[in-house]
């Protein structure tokens, strides 16, 4: 109950991210409406679908876009446009400006040239030189009637959470050395500042984060009368680089939301349970649910719940809903009845949501308590604690022998390398087994993992891991009573995600920057930041702090962050400072897609 109240308050306090969202939404609608009044085919690059759905608040794009004249939505892939004689004479492409997508675009336009269809292209988030060059190489640039940029960048998903829906950001920066995304990010943060004022303090950790900060500075000097005239609404921006900690994303998750993602996958906040959620109302089965705090109060209570406390939390939620329903029995005055009737639709909706979540929780709980998953969590904990190396190593080998899914095995190998460290002989043995079981293409993937240092054969990882873990209190060796966990490590069952730890240090706001810098420096990678400003520049009564996670963040980390946030808010509120936090990232990731994006995919 207390947490619910707290959240309600935060919704009012946080700066109005909806402004930004409405702006992007308007721009998007305007772009897709064009050419107005004609029927058209919309051809979507898979990687922008999510962003588009989020921006348009849509769970079904074809319904949402019908009023704009879109009669047919197709996915951009290697195949030709599916058309017949009756197909519309215009086609609108919305394509991410990366080479793979643009190549498919080029081929598709070329294949359809004979139809003389009017081609409109929107590049997300920006038309780049390379894209134009590739279109030239396909010889189709002159066939495009209009080529525009569509800035689908920082999309507010919740009152305090934004994502850029950039799938391949981590791979591009660490593996390909392609920092284009960083410029996109910097640009989107500039756009954010155009809405909410110049952010006086920018600090962070990691080499790519530093690059983004530098670019922002430079872009700031390019524009003359920038956002500097606006009163700053956000006091500080902290940018954290995924590269600083690659262990957490490959870990197996343990919170409600994380587990749903782990077992079934959440795509762009949408989840379609592959099982029946209700026996009473069969209509609910097979329905897609939007997992967001804004529309689903029960979910807000459950999302960060660790699997060990899940049952209790579900119980708590049930009681709360029941209590609200029970109020109808104690209504004496007409006014009270009227007030209750006003709330009734939302209560009824909550009740329905609760039923759905109970069904999901039952399924998730069953999966999480399976022997297989328990074994995974057990060995994961062993690795974090750096103990029972032999057992863990045997376990991984067995997983390979058992032909477990490759992402799972790779995650285990990465974990092993980042915790115990991989000796060259050990790695050679694993490599042989991996190749024998999964095929020789694994070599390319392993090479990628080595280059991104998720696997470091022969690295002296273990020592450093231990010391850093100790310094930043990342490991919680003993966890007696889970109910009373007073640390962010609850989200991963005794492991505090380092980025969240750094964020915690940053937002509790007690430390001076040079002290904070000292702690930040204990982790590898550059630390950078604006020094402390004199007090009078920042209003001390209300503060907004933005945390940007470059390269992705997991649901587990989000749960831990929300927890820190609530704690910090409570404490600062006692000191009379109203604080709110905005979390932003390039994409919510999980272990599977994090590793899969690094595959040595055959292009």
């Amino acid at each position, binding site marked *: 109950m207390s947490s619910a109240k707290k959240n309600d308050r935060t919704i009012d306090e946080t700066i109005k991210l909806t402004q930004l969202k409405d702006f992007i939404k308007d721009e998007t609608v305007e772009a897709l409406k064009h050419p107005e009044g004609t029927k058209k085919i919309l051809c979507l690059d898979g990687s922008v679908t999510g962003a588009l759905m989020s921006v348009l608040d849509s769970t079904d794009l074809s319904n949402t876009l019908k009023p704009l004249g879109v009669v047919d939505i197709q996915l951009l892939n290697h195949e030709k446009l599916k058309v017949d004689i009756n197909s519309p004479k215009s086609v609108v492409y919305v394509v991410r400006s990366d*080479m793979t997508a643009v190549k498919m675009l080029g081929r598709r336009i070329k294949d359809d040239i004979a139809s003389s269809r009017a081609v409109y292209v929107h590049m997300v988030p920006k038309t780049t*030189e390379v894209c134009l060059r590739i279109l030239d190489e396909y010889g189709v640039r002159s066939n495009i009637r209009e080529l525009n940029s569509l800035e689908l960048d920082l999309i507010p998903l919740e009152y305090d959470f934004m994502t850029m829906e950039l799938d391949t950001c981590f791979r591009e920066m660490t593996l390909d*050395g*392609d920092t284009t995304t960083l410029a996109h990010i910097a640009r989107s943060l500039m756009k954010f500042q155009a809405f909410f004022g110049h952010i006086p303090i920018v600090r962070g950790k990691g080499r790519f984060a530093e690059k983004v900060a530098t670019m922002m500075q430079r872009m700031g000097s390019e524009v*003359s009368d920038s956002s500097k005239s606006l009163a700053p609404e956000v006091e500080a921006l902290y940018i954290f680089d995924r590269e600083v900690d690659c262990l957490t994303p490959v870990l197996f998750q343990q919170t409600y939301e994380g587990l749903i993602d782990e077992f079934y996958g959440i795509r762009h906040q949408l989840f379609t349970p592959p099982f029946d959620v209700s026996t009473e109302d069969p209509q609910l089965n097979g329905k897609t649910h939007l997992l967001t705090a804004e529309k689903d109060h029960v979910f807000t209570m459950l999302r960060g719940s660790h699997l060990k406390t899940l049952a209790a939390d579900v119980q708590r939620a049930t009681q709360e809903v029941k209590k609200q329903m029970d109020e109808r029995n104690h209504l004496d005055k007409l006014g009270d009845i009227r007030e209750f009737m006003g709330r009734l639709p939302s209560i009824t909706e909550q009740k329905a949501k609760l039923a759905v979540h109970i069904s999901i929780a039952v399924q998730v709980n069953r999966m999480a308590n399976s022997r297989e998953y328990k074994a995974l969590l057990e060995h994961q904990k062993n690795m974090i604690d750096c103990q029972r190396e032999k057992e863990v190593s045997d376990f991984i080998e067995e997983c390979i*022998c058992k032909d477990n899914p490759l992402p799972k095995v790779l995650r285990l190998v990465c974990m092993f390398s980042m915790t115990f460290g991989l000796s060259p002989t050990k790695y050679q043995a694993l490599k042989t087994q991996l*190749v024998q079981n999964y095929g*020789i293409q694994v070599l*390319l993937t392993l090479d990628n993992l080595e280059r991104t240092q998720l696997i470091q054969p022969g690295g002296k990882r273990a020592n450093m891991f231990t010391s850093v873990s100790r310094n930043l209190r990342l490991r919680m060796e003993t966890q007696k009573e889970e109910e009373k966990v007073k640390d962010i490590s609850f989200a991963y069952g005794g492991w505090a995600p380092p980025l969240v730890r750094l964020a915690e240090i940053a937002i509790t706001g007690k430390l001076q920057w040079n002290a904070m810098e000292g702690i930040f420096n204990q982790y590898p990678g550059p630390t950078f930041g604006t020094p402390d400003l004199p007090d009078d520049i920042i209003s001390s009564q209300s503060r907004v702090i933005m945390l940007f996670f470059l390269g992705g963040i997991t649901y587990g980390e989000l749960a831990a962050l929300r927890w820190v946030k609530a704690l910090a808010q409570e404490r600062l509120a006692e000191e009379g400072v109203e604080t709110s936090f905005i979390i932003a990232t390039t994409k919510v990731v999980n272990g599977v897609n994090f590793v899969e994006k690094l595959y040595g995919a*055959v292009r």
Partner: protein
Amino acid sequence: MTDLVPTHDWQPLGQDKDGSYTYYRKVEVYQMKWTVDIGECMVAAAPYGGPIAVARDPKKLVKATSTQKPMIRTYTSSGVLISQFPQRDAIIHSMSWTSEELLVILFTHGLVCIYDMHGEKQLEDSLGAQSNVLQASYYPDGVVVLLEENTLRHITFEDRKLSVIVFPDLGCTTAPYTIQCRPLGEFQDSSMLQVYMSPHENDSAKGTLFMLNKLEKVDLNTPFQHVLKVAINPKGNLVATFNSNGKVNVSTANMQKNISEFNTRSREPPNQLLWCGNDVVVCCFLPEQIQTDKPNNTKSLVLIIGPGTDHDKYTYEGPVHAVCEGDCMRIVSNMRCDIVERVPVSTTQIFGLGSLEPSASLMDAYRDYEMENASSVNSLRELKAEQLTDAVTGCIDAAGHEWDTNVQTKLLKAAAYGKCFCRGYESDAFVDRCKALRVLNAVRDPAVGIPLTLTQYEDLSHIVLIDRLISRRLHFLAYRVSTYLDCKTEKVLVHWACSKVQAIARMKTNNKVADDELVRAIQEKFQLCPGISYRDVAETAFRLNKKNLAIQLLEKEPKVSDQVTLLIGMGLSEMALVKALDSGDTDQVYYVLLTMKKGQTDDELIATLHNNPAARDLFLTYCEHQDKKLLKKYYVTMQLHHQIAFHALRAYFNETDFANKLRLLAEARDNFSKRNDRKQEVDMMNEQDKLLAKQNVYAQNKKDPRFNQGFSVAATLRLLIFHKDFKEADSLAKELNVPLKMYHWIKLKALCKYQLWAELESFGKARKNPIGFAPFVEECIKAGQSFEAKKYVHKVEDYAARCEAYCDLSMFEDAIKTAEHEGDTGVLEAIRTRTTDAQHRQLIETAIRKIG
């Protein structure tokens, strides 16, 4: 009040709808600072108080003063010389100014040159006609030209480009008296252009006035005598004609309605027929045109004709040149520059003799107030609230139209005084007017010489005015006006800097100190304006062959894209690459690299990439997609053997042809073998090679194409087991060094998957079993075969695991018995959590007690 504004020379010309007179006045704006005799010259003055171009008139006899080439000179409206430049060796037909204040010079033989007012040539092009120019009728951005063979051409010079449209044949045998074009409103489409043409009396074609456009020729059936001159008013709705009988007629544009007629009693057409505003027609007669009693008349006559029969005339010493401004007329003579304008209603209301208007009362009251006369307030009290507001508005309006700053001040002070008595008066209009006047007075200064009226200023917009100040190189004034009106100053500063660069380039001495000094000066000024672009300045420097200066300036450019494109344009792609990389903007890096790729050899490119790792990564990513050949070439040149190997391996997966696959594999292996740390990969390639060969054989022998789908060793083994060829599976596993443990798992899982239970049973009896029997039980259960599982459960070695397996198979008694036998209470406790059966729980309790 007469002391303030003279009203005696107000000439009533026509009446307003309410019967009040419309007055016109002539205001002397400047005493000309020049020593030009316009009688000897060809003169062209730009509207909106624009510059005046003067060239020698070839048709007039002039006493030769020097042997110099004839010069073209440009002056401000106040007669200050702007520039002079030599005229081409050709006869000028006529000159005019474009809306951008560029000077168009049309030569008789059909050449068009466009200069800016400083004599910098902007354009030179030919009409493409063989014959000479007879007549030309200009409008702001174009001209209609009559050629000797009686054809019309319409020429436009928009965007500093000449385009010629040929009109259909006129059908005239003799050159017409006159042509006059009439652009329609904001049109820029030549099909909309209309031309009045008045055929010569000797012409075979009958009729007096025709209207032409690109497509047709219409006889307007005018009742006049031959039309010698035509003028169209600024609005474009009225046409004035001077006819051979000496009459001036005003008609509607289509000539359907004759509005007024005035007899000038002159045989000869005036030198100029033009409009002053939209209601009044003006005829300018030069001295030689006027027949007087005196033999050597030196006076010009300017005849102004109002609607109806009202008229007035001004005489000037020497010739005059009149310019039609939208709302008034400018008369330039050798000595003076005058403006003839309609006296604004607000002014007549205040200063008109015996005016009883509120604004006149306010003015009176203010005068009383100034003289410290207490009755001042009384006369104001007589006014009603809205009358007072009108009075204030009237004074503000009148102030705007005055030329004399004293009068302006008085009127504004009166307005300021009056608005104190108005409740809740919005002062915006007052403030705006004050600002406008301040700007107007500044540009009207004789040194600047732009005599703009308020109406013209509002029509032109302050942005254009600033542009015009810039193009006059009055940077300081332009800057002051910009800051005063809160406009962007970038344009001014950039233009100023460009002019500085041009000046230093003209000196033609490469003086590094001067360059540095200039850069410092520019930077100092540019600092006032954060984000300002140095690009144009640098480009100017480069164009003028000051490469080093350009580079120095570009260093300061904040926008990387501007730096990069210009550096590439200067041929400094390496430097552009460094700049692009520094910025972190990959788009710019790609731009440079792709440009380099076009212009450089592969080897040069590779060398550049080698020196710039960040650029290299980006470019190789691009090559991976679009240019695999170059990618490989890079790896080979750099001797990155493992990269070549991986490259081959990637190609291997895309290859379907068997022989090619083998070749790529060999390439990968050879390259791996060149490195010491890739021994394992070499072995793997060899094994893959063997596997590939085997798979090929299996696919044929077993007639199963799945063998050729690029399976891994394990998958191949599974497929062999599916085909029940255990012998071959065993030998393949051995040949490819599959660990025994792994092979056991593979076989176990495959047997269960394909439901080969008998085979599983015999497999269970194999001599060696490195994985134990727990997996057997597990896999059988997974396949839903508890019956099969039970065959192996007793064989599970570890008792704890065995108990677990028993529980999985719901064989709780066996589980309890085993645990009891081993005396392990822990296991018993574990069993208890698995069963709900009371009887089993009882058994567990007993067992625990027994052990305990």
